[in-house]
């Protein structure tokens, strides 16, 4: 893959956003934007048309679940990786039911993140 995939990071925590940015492989992905709320995420998604989105679930102004529903209605093929602390498995499952494709549990290390992202785009054409 010569052209890096565009990536959008959605998380209300600065630290996590930076961590994801650091952890995502530079050759494979290029972080094109980040959002700290569901509402902002939708705007950025429309504007940047990213290939990959990482999504937190608990956020102010529209939570992750609702945001995922919105993104999927904009682009049913959106590749969304939920990155969230596992407080309730049912919520995580709901996020996938809404259209996300994978779940990465916080806390994570860079290797785990990069493996998850690779897995997410493994069949990308």
């Amino acid at each position, binding site marked *: 893959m010569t052209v890096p995939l565009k990536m959008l990071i959605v998380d209300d925590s600065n630290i996590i956003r930076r961590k994801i940015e650091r952890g995502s492989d530079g050759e494979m992905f290029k972080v094109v934007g980040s959002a700290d709320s569901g509402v902002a995420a939708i705007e950025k998604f429309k504007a940047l048309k990213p290939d990959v989105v990482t999504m937190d679930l608990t956020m102010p102004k529209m939570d992750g679940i609702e945001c995922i529903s919105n993104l999927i209605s904009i682009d049913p093929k959106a590749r969304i990786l939920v990155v969230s602390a596992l407080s309730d*498995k*049912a919520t995580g*499952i709901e996020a996938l*039911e809404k259209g996300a*494709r*994978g*779940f990465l549990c916080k806390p994570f290390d860079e290797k785990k993140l990069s493996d998850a992202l690779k897995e997410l785009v493994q069949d990308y054409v």
Partner: protein
Amino acid sequence: MWSALGKYKAIVVSIALFLILDASVLSLNFFISFKIADDAVGVNLAGRQRMLTQRTVKSLYDLRLAEGDTVKQETALNELKTTYNLFNTTLTAFDKGGETKNANGETVVLKRVNSDAGRVAIDEAKIIWQPYSDAIAKVIAASGTAAMAQSLNSAIVIAGDKNLLLLKLMNDLTVNLEQVATHQATVLRYIQTGGITLAIINFLIILFHFIGELRQNDKFLEDARKETTDILDTVNEGLFLLDKDLVIGEQQSSQLAEIFGGKDARGLKFSDLIGDLVKPKDLETAQRFVNLLFRPDVKGNLISDLNPLNQVEINIPDEDGGYITRHLSFEFSRVSKDGELKNVLVTVNDITEQVMLARELEETKEKGEQQLEMLTSILHANPGVLKRFIQNAFDAYGRINKILKEQSKSPAVMQRKLNDIFIEVHNFKGEASALELDNFAEYAHVFEDDIQALKQQSKLAGNDFLKLAVHLESLIRYTESIKELADKLASFAFNQDPSSSVRSPTNHENVTSSDWKHLTKLCENVSQRDKKQAQLVLTGFDEAKINDDAQKLVNELSIQFIRNAVVHSIEHPEFRKARGKHETGRIDARLSRLPTGELELSVHDDGCGINYEKIRSKALMIGKWDKAEVEKFTHQQLLSLIFLPGFSTADNQNEDAGRGVGMDIIKKRIDQYQGKIKVSSSSGKHCQFTVTFPADAFAQNEIDTQQGKVA
């Protein structure tokens, strides 16, 4: 396409071969049949040549006979022409290959005769035929009777000369052609026989080879199936497949039934298998989770964190109405076929042992911490004393349980029960605080509080005692763990020595090793709490040879007397100073065996003595007696009041005083052993309690100490 045939390649090749073989036999058959048909024409025409030679001769003679009859001559000449042409054409056709007419006048094509014998016959016939043919041609061409006759004569001469030879040659040709035809038919028969033989061989090959192969394949399949079954029968995990409707497949490991208490899962819905065993919410989440696995866009490797059944506790009811608790781990993995998600393989592991082990570890750790705390709480106590305390505690618990067990609906009896329990608990608390076993003392204090609260209640019911039973149970539990710890400690040699280094360095320096050291400590503690100064002098305690039972009672009494002395008699230091006394009060406790064999315990203090007026005003406060009556009470009478239950003159309730039991217990215990109590007090100077027990008091009561164990 070819590769798609897979293991069927060989059988397809065989069948194709069979068809090709059949086709070639068939076409050869065709070819030879045609050839035989050609040969038949040849044979036929060769036979005709024989006939034509004779007819030619006959036509020549007919022509001679018809001389003068033009009509007949004409007919004969035509006959000759036809016969001659037909013979000539046919011979040429046999010689070089070409057309001729058959019996019906149709054109047929003959092939050049190639057989050796045929060739010889034809070549010879050609040589004979040449002059003969020329002569006949002259006959046909002759004009005029003379010319005719002349040419006819020469032709007849040649005919007469050569006819038989020509006939023979044509006969040879016929025979030869017949032989060739027969040979072809024979070849055809061979070919047909060969073809059929090959076909049969091919069929047999197919039959034996491929059926064998199929059989082998079947055997492989059967073996594979058996292997699968063997695997499923022996694996330690519960294995089964789920389809998209979450229905369990037909094959599963035998361990599965084991795990699920013998349930046959085949064809069940997943919810039927685990629905009764896990919480409804877990079941719902699990079903949703499995559904995610059937969605191709979801990354199977990226959702394992969401598996709600990765460690789940299930409780399987057993036949006895109880539960078997198992900890299971469910793993779900996708099974794809041709790129389509067909099933989810579920692996169930019984991780009960691991979980239990982890839990045990956790518990051990927790227990370790608790024990450490307990250890610190009992470390300062002399092991012998501690042992006695624990035994006393269990005795007390037994007595409390006995009181609880006693059933009555009468409020008075219930009140008495409360009182009796209170006395036991209070006494226990006293002993605990004397030994500085603070945990016990605190627990007993809470226990007491609850009893006090119940005492205030106007109407008591059996159910109200539940709280007390719970306290009792917790105390027993706590004491059991302390006992366990104490037993362990006792097994260490260094701890057998009461003056070992583990003791608190703040201990009184002068005190020698003694089982009664705690009394000194008690005195110090109570004084400190009451902001007083007092020194205890023990005499005769270590020397008196008394049994355990006596020792127990002496201990109880001493604790009570010493505490009373500090709380009620010894004055505050400033006060003592003002009275010209030493700031530190002195308490003398003496245990002695009298010459009569009686055992005497006396506790003397140099405090203010008994404050009779305080008792009198307290008696008034209680309101049990008339004021006039109380005013008239003698010292003797007032003194007897302090032995009544619930009577206390202390101003504040605390751990040491004011709860109003103490003296009444002492009275009860003394009575129990037929002891006598004597009180002497001089206001402002001193106070002394003396108790005397008969010589045989403790020997008799030895059996009683066995009672009291709970239940």
